[in-house]
């Protein structure tokens, strides 16, 4: 691939990215979240089309416009999002759309036996091939994807975060399969955040940063994990140039407290307490359970253990919001912004009563006044409270979501990936607002995979690894390198708090 460009709207996601993959090698592709890895892969597999640039396969320029094109060229991918049909049996899903499923009389038993053999051969795992796909664990579903891709006998195999849901021995099996394929001349692109794994399996590594090539590395040639981390992080522009807050002097009663919070299959025994005037960040790799933590803490997801807001348990999402809890969710488009409403309506959504008239009527003027003030304060663009939210950029949408809680005057914030897909300028505004709120006595729980953000904002950093908190660092000890090391290896070298008992 050469000089690949891709932009969505005005946001350039990929900027002249080059990637070279030889037959019979494993190429690692790394970069921070939002660096453009997934977009690059989607272009290779025909889910997106490229704006400019060229893709060559075996020296021939090729066009990939739809998934079928990629398949015809022998490019197989194991997506991070598992695209599986729930109520199909494993055997049916494994052979879906392949020559093996064709025929006028599918003998279920035979197909299941063949599928079991195929899965065993390609992944080394036993799977009940008569079970339905949605009855399987995430790891087992992943095995189907791997087996499917390998069975297609690809020339190029792309694995996007394949190990996140797998246990250690399953990872070993997968590596066995990968080496086997590599020895047969298959070119493999391996995307992962787990740098330890990359060291084990890859021959070379290409690093992306902010949609550009940041450089190549090779563990075989003596580069270390630290070198790769250095490439990933680069010399970033510091967005945290705003006034650093004084660390909270007196800590009162915790505003927000998680006690033994567990979510089946993802989180176990999480204990966190956030006092007024402090920002506590929780970070971890994708797949570590970080995705569901904020939902569970705000009453949006079933969990065991309890989440306390100002000392009382959070009964529901509405209860959380009613007691001045603010939740900025990670999935902005479905859970955060009201896409078809104006910025004014979005800002007023949580405080309609406060901004309304008597008799349940709306008060457009009051709403507009509040919205205008917040639009200015957060520099939401276009600076028009009547702009419809779906027309705003991600960063401005996120500012509007935050403004909703500012309008309400919330004093306990839960921020889930508050700046994912948000441009640099908007980030600064969001950070400034969070800091200011906390300075005024609010408590903030920041859940983020963006290490810069975590280090730049938090007073304390908790590291989540495979569903548990394995380390707590005060801001003085927290550095991106240290956190990345902890989060990707799970090794709590040196000072850390005791592991939480289950």
């Amino acid at each position, binding site marked *: 691939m050469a000089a690949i460009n891709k932009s*969505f*709207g*005005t*946001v350039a*996601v990929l900027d002249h990215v080059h990637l070279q993959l030889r037959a019979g090698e494993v190429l690692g592709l790394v970069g921070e979240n939002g660096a453009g890895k997934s*977009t690059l892969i989607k272009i290779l597999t025909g889910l*997106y089309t490229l704006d400019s640039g060229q893709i060559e396969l075996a020296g021939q320029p090729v066009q990939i416009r739809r998934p079928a094109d990629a398949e015809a060229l022998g490019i197989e991918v194991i997506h991070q*999002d*598992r*695209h*599986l049909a*729930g109520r199909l049996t494993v055997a049916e899903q494994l052979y879906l759309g392949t020559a093996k499923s064709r025929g006028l009389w599918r003998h279920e038993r035979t197909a299941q036996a063949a599928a079991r053999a195929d899965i065993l051969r390609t992944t080394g795992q036993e799977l009940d091939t008569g079970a339905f796909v*949605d009855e399987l664990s*995430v790891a087992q*579903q992943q095995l189907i994807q791997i087996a499917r891709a390998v069975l297609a006998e690809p020339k190029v195999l792309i694995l996007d975060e394949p190990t996140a849901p797998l246990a250690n021995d399953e990872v070993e099996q997968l590596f066995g399969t990968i080496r086997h394929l590599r020895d047969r001349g298959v070119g493999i692109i391996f995307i992962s955040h787990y740098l330890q794994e990359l060291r084990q399996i890859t021959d070379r590594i290409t690093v992306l940063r902010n949609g550009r090539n940041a450089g190549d590395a090779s563990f075989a040639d003596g580069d270390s994990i630290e070198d790769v981390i250095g490439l990933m992080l680069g010399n970033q522009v510091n967005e945290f140039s705003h006034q650093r807050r004084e660390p909270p002097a007196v800590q009162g009663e915790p505003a927000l407290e998680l006690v033994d919070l567990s979510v089946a*299959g*993802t989180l176990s025994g999480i204990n966190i307490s956030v006092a007024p005037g402090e920002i506590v960040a929780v970070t971890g790799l994708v797949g570590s359970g970080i*995705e569901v933590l904020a939902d569970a803490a*705000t009453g*949006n997801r079933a969990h065991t253990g309890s989440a306390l807001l100002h000392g009382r348990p959070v009964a529901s*999402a*509405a209860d*959380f*919001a*009613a007691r001045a809890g603010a*939740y900025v*969710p990670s*999935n*902005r*488009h*479905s*859970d*955060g*912004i*009201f*896409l*078809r*409403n104006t910025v004014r*309506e979005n800002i*007023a*959504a*949580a405080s*309609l*009563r406060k901004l*309304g008239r008597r008799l*349940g*009527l*709306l008060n457009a003027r009051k709403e507009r006044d509040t919205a205008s003030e917040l639009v200015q304060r957060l520099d939401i663009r276009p600076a028009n409270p009547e702009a*419809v939210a*779906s*027309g*705003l*950029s*991600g960063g401005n949408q996120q500012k509007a979501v935050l403004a*909703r809680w500012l309008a309400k005057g919330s004093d306990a914030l839960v921020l889930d990936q508050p700046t994912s897909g948000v441009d640099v300028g908007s980030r600064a505004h969001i950070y400034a607002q969070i800091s200011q709120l906390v300075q005024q006595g609010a408590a903030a729980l920041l859940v983020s995979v963006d290490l810069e953000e975590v280090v730049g904002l938090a007073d304390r950093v908790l590291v989540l690894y495979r569903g548990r908190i394995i380390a707590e660092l005060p801001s003085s000890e927290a550095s991106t390198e240290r956190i990345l090391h902890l989060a990707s290896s799970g090794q709590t070298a040196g000072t850390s708090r005791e592991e939480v008992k289950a």
Partner: protein
Amino acid sequence: MSTIETLAAPVEPSPGPVAAYSGKKRGTLQASRLVAPGTLALILIVFSVLSPVIFTVGNLFGILGQVALLALAAIGLTLVVRAGGIDLSIGVALDLGALASAWLIHDGYRAWVAVAGGLLCALAVGAVNALLIVILRIPAFLATLSVWFAGTSVQQLLTGGGAPIYLSAPLVPDGFAVIGRGYFLGIDAAIVNAVSISLVVALLLGITRYGRKLTMAGEQPSAARISGLRTNALIASAYLLCAVIAGFAGVVLAARSNGYVPGSGQAYLMDAIGAVFIGATISRYGRVSVGGTLIGVVIFGLLDNGLNLIGLSFFWQDLARGLVLLSILLAAVVLGRAKSRPATGIFALLRTTKHQALTNTAKGNRK
């Protein structure tokens, strides 16, 4: 996210980069939005050429009088669709409203008792819907379909096998008769009723907190929940209100026709759904609205009336209605697709997006 939640939110916008396109070309008017008003204009022009009578004041009011009941039913349905659901049982609520009020009048009760009785019966239908959908989480379509089933037989049971109730005109109190047959400032009472209810609902959706919350809960339930709205109560209230409005239509029907004929309410269901979704095409976001619904209702009314005036039989009117509905919806979808990629357009409501399926899977599998 379960299928049920998806049902409650048919318009869940697609996340991801696709929405980033929506930044462009928002200012221009989508052609798809002109389909419904265009059709209305076309029908007017065609019929005014074919028949000079159509533009007489008397005829226009006649049309409005004929569609007043449909308008009421469709307005009720508009509320439910705004709340992200659908109600196939409006016919039952309408019939029970008519039945109860006719019955009470027949037994010599006063007008206000009859009206209250009719509305209460309809409210019961709404309460059953709300229970099934919000508490038992049965998909709205199937839940209200079963209520339609059950309601039809309840009517038959109450009327001893489907015998109509006829009220002899002299015995009907004036206070009741005026609801359906009276004249207010020379305007048919049914029109007055339909217009006033439309106005109330339009204001409810437009300028009250309730309307804002209902819309949010219907379009993006999870975002609404996170913003602290009690989505369950909101959605339940939409079914209750819809049933009461349909019940009121039933009371008007009973007063207008001096009696009750079992099963007459179902006739309004299909037209009401058609009108509501025709109305959705005029919104940039495929959002149903009182105004749009009324346009749909008037299209149907004009079509019937015009075909009548040029001498086509009742059966052809039905056919024309079906064809017009299909063409408007198809035109809106096709134009919407050609114009813009984002799933926030009219598109989002009429069309099943594949991105929606994509998000569901991703979420479903991540658990």
